[in-house]
């Protein structure tokens, strides 16, 4: 079911090189970090809070059914250093969001990056220093 949903409305973006270690309050290995996906949707809520912020967005699947996804982010401090603020997203914004999905098949994921309505792209931030490219 989840695969149908993703195939119908999303873009499989393939293997992104992500240098951020898994660091959520989930069980550490509950996200499929090797297979990020991108979805287009409408923000229903942007919850700016510790320990992790959350983006909720409505996405239509291939049968036109609306699914509300929960995409958690890293902490506000990490997002701020990546250029975010609590005003970055608002209900009604049409965005493209890239995340690593839950392995359980639930509409839950961990943010990697977002394409804002303005065309600006913001990363989900970095944990610790990254190796020189």
């Amino acid at each position: 079911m989840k695969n149908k949903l993703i195939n119908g409305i999303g873009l499989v973006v393939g293997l992104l090189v992500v240098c951020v270690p898994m660091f959520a309050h989930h069980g550490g290995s509950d996200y499929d970090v090797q297979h990020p996906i991108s979805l287009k949707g409408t923000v229903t809520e942007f919850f700016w809070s510790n320990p992790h912020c959350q983006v909720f967005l409505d996405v239509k699947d291939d049968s036109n059914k609306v699914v509300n996804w929960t995409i958690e982010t890293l902490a506000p401090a990490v997002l701020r250093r990546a250029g975010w603020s609590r005003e970055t997203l608002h209900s009604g914004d049409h965005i493209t969001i890239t995340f690593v999905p839950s392995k359980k098949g639930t509409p839950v994921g961990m943010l990697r990056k977002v394409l804002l309505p303005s065309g600006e792209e913001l990363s989900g931030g970095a944990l610790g220093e990254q190796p020189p490219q």
Partner: protein
Amino acid sequence: MRKSFLGPAIALATALAFLAVARAQTDHSGAAKTNARNAAFDPRDFTGIWNPAPFMQPKGEVNPLDLGGHPNPLPPFTPAGEATYLANAKFIAAGAVLDCDPFGVSRNFFTPRPFEILLTRDRLVQHFEYYDNWREIWTDGRKFPAEVDPEYMGYSIGHWDGDTFVVDSALYNGKAFLTWQGFPISESMHQTERWRRVDPETLKILFTFNDPVNYAKPWSVTFFWKLRKDWVMDAHPCTLSAIKEYDERVNHADKLPGRDYGNPDKK
């Protein structure tokens, strides 16, 4: 005759000066970076904000920041230590790791967030951004006190060995994890750290963990941090209301049980 010599000489000098200025203005990368690395710094001054650089850890050591659930290699557990680790790992996998208890020293070090160093007359103070934990390292020559209760953050004393700052810490209460993976820590833990600024931008710390309850022998980890002169510390306090809300919104949405709030003593 004299006039005819002076003219070309002035022109030549002007051209050389111009070339030198032009080169200095365009050489932003190589020489400038080398100069930054070699800039004079006080090897005994640790003040500032330090961000962890996990990629610099030597290969083959226990990775204290591998959060994928498969830290490899594992520390040299005792049978009791391994059993505690496996129980902790199961607890973490359930998403039940959320609480506001202080992290203890090592788990704070191995959280991928910055800490700030402040110096006072008799202490070096560490402020860890994540969950707003504080640590004091006494530098006034004192020994471990006889009458101090064990605590999450233990008790730390430091002294200099040349330009290496040596920290001994003990008096831990054994209730924290050593790392996010759930490596255990007991009241027997004696932790030593050897801090050294290897260049103006890099702090290297060699940790040695000696906890005979959980580990068959002392084991070590080398970890690095980078100085972030352009950063300020951000607010990240832990509040039970916020993590409970996170549990409801994220963990439960992903069918994870999260924490048992009916039993606040559950770890």
